[in-house]
């Protein structure tokens, strides 16, 4: 079973401060984040996180500011080491890698887009994008060729020789994206990679990411504050609060069955009709009428038909088989839970 998971996080806790181990003991004895900070000046970053991320999926991490998202994602490429617990990537505990293997792992297998861009201010856009390739020893001419492709992909052709300081925030973010894509890593860590983009470019980038995903089957760990983005991109979504994992599930699962009050409030304002698929709401029954919807279509698609008639509408699954029906009552009930 281990093999099908690309990344496994096992019982990971992280505490920032002078004596993390002692603080961890206190946390395990039941102390919360606020109390720990007040009593011993230690910050609880993460507490007992367990996650399984499948190969080829987009895994979204959500949570309020300070909930530990960036801390968690930095564990995957060991920029941060946990106070306790293990992180397995392809079955290998990254904490056991020696310096050499860790560098090889970071060069070939995993790459990252940073929340605050973290570009090299003294290097041009092109030099930034090919940095990872050069570090890995690729010939500069070849690296530039690859770099030019990535720069075109993120829509920055013509800016190769500009410096980051001469670009807008959104453009800088796209340089960070191109830099991460350039190394062709199997795993892509994206810490609020789209947060600085305007809605149009953001939508473009989301579509491009889905496209990349469909073609290359990378494993993507994506942090976002934006629930719509999470639902659009995420095969699974994890919700963090104060360093504790509150729920992990598919988008519809989380929308339709929030694990607790916090998650419920978190997802309250989302447009369910657009995010929940017909498949998620289908119940057993006999369809009547001509209209048949795909399980993957949003519930929204059924609205006009439901408005016109009371009859159960058929929903077919990926193989074209009828999987169930939607009725006016089930749809209203599902959407009403706010």
């Amino acid at each position: 079973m281990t093999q099908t998971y690309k990344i496994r996080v096992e019982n990971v806790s992280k505490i920032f401060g002078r004596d993390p181990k002692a603080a961890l003991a206190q946390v395990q004895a039941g102390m919360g984040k606020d109390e720990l900070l007040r009593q011993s000046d230690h910050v609880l970053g993460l507490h007992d996180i367990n996650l399984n991320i499948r190969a080829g999926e987009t895994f979204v991490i959500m949570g309020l500011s300070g909930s530990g998202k960036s801390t968690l994602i930095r564990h995957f490429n060991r920029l941060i080491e946990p106070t306790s617990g293990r992180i397995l990537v392809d079955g290998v505990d990254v904490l056991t890698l020696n310096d050499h293997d860790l560098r090889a792992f970071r060069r070939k297998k995993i790459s990252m887009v940073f929340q605050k861009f973290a570009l090299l201010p003294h290097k041009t856009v092109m030099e930034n994008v090919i940095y990872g390739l050069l570090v890995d020893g690729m010939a500069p001419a070849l690296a530039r060729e690859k770099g030019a492709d990535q720069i075109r992909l993120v829509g920055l052709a013509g800016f190769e020789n500009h410096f980051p300081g001469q670009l807008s925030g959104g453009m800088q973010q796209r340089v960070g994206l191109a830099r991460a894509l350039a190394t062709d890593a199997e795993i892509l860590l994206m810490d609020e990679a789209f947060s600085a983009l305007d809605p149009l470019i953001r939508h473009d980038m989301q579509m491009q990411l889905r496209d990349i995903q469909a073609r290359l089957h990378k494993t993507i760990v994506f942090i976002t504050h934006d629930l719509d983005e999470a639902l659009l991109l995420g095969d699974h979504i994890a919700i963090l609060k104060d360093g504790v994992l509150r729920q992990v599930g598919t988008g519809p699962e989380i929308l339709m069955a929030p694990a607790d009050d916090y998650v419920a409030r978190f997802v309250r304002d989302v447009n369910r009709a657009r995010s929940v698929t017909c498949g998620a709401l289908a119940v057993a029954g006999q369809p009547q009428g001509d209209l048949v919807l795909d399980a993957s279509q949003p519930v929204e698609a059924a609205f006009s038909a439901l408005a016109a008639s009371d009859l159960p509408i058929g929903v077919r699954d990926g193989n074209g088989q009828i999987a169930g029906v939607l009725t006016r009552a089930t749809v209203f009930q599902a959407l009403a839970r706010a």
Partner: protein
Amino acid sequence: MADGFPELFDIRSFGRAMDQGFNQIVANYGETLEAIFLPVLKALVMMEKVLLWLPWWGVLLALAALAYAASRRWTVTVAVAVMTFCIGVIGVWEQAMATIALMVISTLLAVLVGLPIGIAMSRGKRMQAVTLPILDIMQTMPIFVYLIPFVMLFGPGKIPALLATIVFAIPPVIRLTNLGIRQVDAETVEAVRAFGASPLQILFSVQIPLAMPAILAGINQTTMMALSMVVIASMIGAGGLGYQVLQGIQRLEISSGLMAGLGIVLLAIIFDRIAQSYGQRMQKSLKLES
């Protein structure tokens, strides 16, 4: 009254042991050390010769070109040229060339030694904790104290003058290299670490370039301190402008002392302008780029 002060150890015999120990070092290693520093001496003499062999306008043009390369501004270039001209006008050209040679060589060596120390300091808390107090002591110790061991080792001459100057002038390069590297944005360093850069790659592709404005400021300060050392260094045979000041004291001639003093001031301004404007230009381009 120091009567009755508890005598914790016998300071006299301690002092004697120290002197004897050092004498022993001088006796045993003096010649080896001299041989080691012979190439440095040759470089120093060579540079002095070249500067004096060049026609005065050749040196003037070279300094002006350097000023333009560093600042890309005509005002600075012209100012440097005029000040260089003044050095000749007040009649201390030859002494000034000797002083420039000493200053340039000692600054070069100070940077060569100071950069690695500063880099090492920036990499660990412990290294910094050990080095900082030593630098503090080096900077507060009266300069004359440095002359003693070097003169003992080498006898009066250019080498001890050079070494004393280096010891005196090296702290700013070390301090500011350390500081500059520590001030590089942690997230930028983290980003290149995430792409698998080795410590050396991080140092040369990110930390040193981004610390460059600070390092340059350190080099500038070192240059100025080396220059301020020339009078004292001339007491043990450095020659140049400092020696003329010294002669002014001995002969009670205010004119020769004043002219040489003015020469030192002019040199200080010239090199400070060049270094500062280069630093400013770099800082500006880094700002633009960040």
